[in-house]
């Protein structure tokens, strides 16, 4: 599989005000079937997508936040969250849901998929990709 490419899905919008966040997740799941090297980036309002305790019964729309926890089964295990974006919104890692994956190269040990990175690290992650898709 030498033609594996690095795909980064950039999420910059909050979850329910527009359809972008849900559509991004749908595209990630579709893309995962093609066995590419997939990462997700959450910055600006995108960090709101990962907050825990989302409850949408009252809105009558699908709460898609649990779907993030299924990404590990599709080998999508790199969810980069920008620290500055969290802080600007009064959030910390403790406000985010726990998303784990089983590392097949390490005796199926459970590891966190969410990786908090600085803005400078995010710049490097973005510039290390073959394809960047924005939502």
């Amino acid at each position, binding site marked *: 599989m030498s033609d594996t490419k690095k795909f980064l899905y*950039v999420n*910059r919008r909050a979850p329910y005000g527009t359809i972008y966040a849900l559509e991004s997740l749908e595209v990630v799941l579709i893309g995962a079937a093609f066995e590419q090297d997939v990462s997700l980036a959450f910055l*600006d309002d995108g960090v709101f997508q990962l907050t825990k305790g989302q409850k949408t019964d009252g809105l009558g729309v699908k709460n898609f936040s649990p779907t993030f926890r299924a990404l590990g089964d599709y080998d999508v295990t790199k969810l980069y969250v920008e620290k500055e974006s969290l802080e600007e919104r009064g959030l910390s890692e403790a406000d985010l849901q726990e998303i784990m994956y089983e590392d097949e190269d390490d005796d199926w040990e459970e590891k966190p998929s969410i990786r908090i990175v600085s803005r400078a690290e*995010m*710049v490097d992650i*973005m510039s290390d990709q073959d394809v*960047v898709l*924005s939502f």
Partner: protein
Amino acid sequence: MATLHTVNKSPFMTQTLLSCINHAKDGDAILMIEDGVYGGMAGTGLSDAVAAKAASLNICVLTEDLEARGLDAGRLVEGVSAVGYDGFVDLVAETDRTQAWL
């Protein structure tokens, strides 16, 4: 390994241009298109932030979108250049990836 960043929203409506500027690496290109072209104008509240990056980034504005809005290249921040569709194509070809800031 440079990136072409495109910005298509007015910087007075969203934070997108600022976020883009803060995530661009030295040597990258930023092309303002559609309502994004307002971000290239001199004499606005954002001109200083754009001017501060004009040396380390290649900041461009799409001429056709400028003209459609009654603006011309003389109104741009110093160091920001106007390019046409052919220049847009050149930027895509010269860079390693394109990141659309929606």
